[in-house]
């Protein structure tokens, strides 16, 4: 599903240049649930941003579902993001003046899905995350865990090929973290490819594979025995 070869990225900080990714090679199959771990500054967020086409690599190859991601202009990147990717952020990033349902329907709006169908599909995904009754509520009427579930529903609504989660549990207490991870695992069980960036060991071990990043290189890449989050809930 994801094919990365010799990916380099550096940031210019005044006269210095900060080499963040120093040749990443990574291959992710469809249906995998991968955790990317590393301390802050290890380049894990940068990697995720490049995977999410929010940022562009300086050199290297990136193929997403067989499509080479290269020299994208903003419009094209937006189209690809909309078609291929779903995002889950640490701080949820729901639009606060839109109800839960409208938030979930937003990616479909950009896919030019008609309103009726959009709402139907949004409701379906809200149902999947167990928030059907909360459809008309605004984000500030929801708890942190509920917000993240809405965000996951939104990421799933567009039926992306890959779900990218950037510290999805970073702003949540452990109980709600496990709830969210349980949800992510269930979505993965349905066959979706998911990448989770985290720095929490227990969260990482709920995935099927852990990629350790340190100073811009992959130091370890191992398959793990998945810990089901539902055992904690």
């Amino acid at each position: 599903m994801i094919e990365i070869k010799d990916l380099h990225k550096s940031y210019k900080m005044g006269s210095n240049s900060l080499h963040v990714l120093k040749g990443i090679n990574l291959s992710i199959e469809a249906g995998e649930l991968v955790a990317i771990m590393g301390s802050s500054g290890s380049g894990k967020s940068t990697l995720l941003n490049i995977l999410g086409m929010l940022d562009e690599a300086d050199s290297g190859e990136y193929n997403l579902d067989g499509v080479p991601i290269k020299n994208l202009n903003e419009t094209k990147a937006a189209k690809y993001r909309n078609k291929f990717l779903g995002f889950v952020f640490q701080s949820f990033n729901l639009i606060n003046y839109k109800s839960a349902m409208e938030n979930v329907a937003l990616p479909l709006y950009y896919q030019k899905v008609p309103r009726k169908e959009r709402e139907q599909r949004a409701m379906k995904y809200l149902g999947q995350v167990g928030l059907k009754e909360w459809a008309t509520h605004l984000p500030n009427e929801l708890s942190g865990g509920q917000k993240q579930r809405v965000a996951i529903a939104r990421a799933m609504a567009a039926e992306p090929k890959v779900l990218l989660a950037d510290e999805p549990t970073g702003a949540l207490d452990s109980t709600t973290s496990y709830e969210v991870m349980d949800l992510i695992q269930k979505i993965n069980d349905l066959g979706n490819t998911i990448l989770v960036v985290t720095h929490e060991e227990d969260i990482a071990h709920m995935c099927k594979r852990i990629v350790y990043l340190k100073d811009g290189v992959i130091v370890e890449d191992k398959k793990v025995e998945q810990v089901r989050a539902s055992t904690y809930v």
Partner: protein
Amino acid sequence: MRFLFDRNTWQEIFGSIGKNKIRTIITIVGVLWGIFIYITLSGASKGMDNGFERMFETIARNSMFVWAQSTSMPNEGFKTGRQLQLKLGDVTMIENRIPEVQYIAPRNVKGFFGSTPARVGRGKESGSYPVFGDFPTFTKIAPKKIYDGGRFINDEDIEKARKVCVIGERTEKELFKKGEKTIGGFIEIDDVFFQVVGVHKFDASGGFGGDGDIFIPFATFKKLYNTGDNVGWFSIAAYDDVDVVKVEENIKNLLKNIHKVHPDDERAFGSFNLGEQFGKIIGFAKGITFLSLIVGIATILAGVIGIGNILLISVKERTKELGVRRALGATPNEVRSQIILESVFLTMIAGVMGIILGAGTLSLISSFTKDIDFPYTNPTVPIPYVIGALLIMVVLGTLIGLIPAQRAVSIKPIDALREE
């Protein structure tokens, strides 16, 4: 274009506009105020324009009066200070020599310029009223409204020197009892009986004159007061498209020639050029219209800039939201058009409200000034002005929206998302 008529687009726009109601209202008020000022000012100046038009509608705009004075320079053996007298014969000369003259009406009066008004009586009633000797042409220059059933002096009256007269409203009121038939009735003017053929409605405009004026045929006046071919003054109307000042000069030069006055003698003939005065007033009104246009547009501009400013702040506030939208697949164009559309939409809403409010104010002013003597009639804003204003608003709204829109898309989604 499809984008514009898409219900979804508008839902998005209403969503983001409705998010911060107070800010939206304040934004709208800015432009609303601008367009309100614009509409009110241009409507008011149009009203003034109309008011002046109405004041002058009763008199030919290119008209003037010319009268004789005394010479101030010796010429052809005549001494200085010779009193000049206009003659009926001058009319033909002017008509023949100066083609720009459309109408010329020689007039005489008793009751102005030092002469005593005529004694006019009917039965026991009597009073003093100015009496004018006139030709029918006079009404071409200064139309007189004649009450129903009456008429002004006609050519036959002149030919036969009929003893007929047209009296004023006041004269009628003072000499005739209520219910009495005026037309066909007889009055005595300086002991001579005249039949009333018309009553004219008094109009304050068009120079001197009053509601007690009596008009009699020029020929009859001549007989009654033994004026011969003497003419008090000429009322002259030039064609609409000619330069009245030039015509005035030509006429005076011709008169100087006829009356053997030195060509440089400026005091020999007096004149009052209504056309010129009218032109000045029209120019003044035009100036005010122009000024109000400028002020109005400047105010609109200020309002629209306000919208741009607030949208800029709003974009800054919404950086994160816009980042999320772009992460979810909004193209830069979609983001840009959304913000421009927000700007245009706010501008239009404000504009339409301002137009309605302005129109309301105008009709209010209009109803207050209806009964007072003030040159202010039917204050309207011409439709092209309104459409122009709306167009300006759309264009400005778009242009000003471009700034925050560009700002919104210039931020990379990744930076937008990172912002807390």
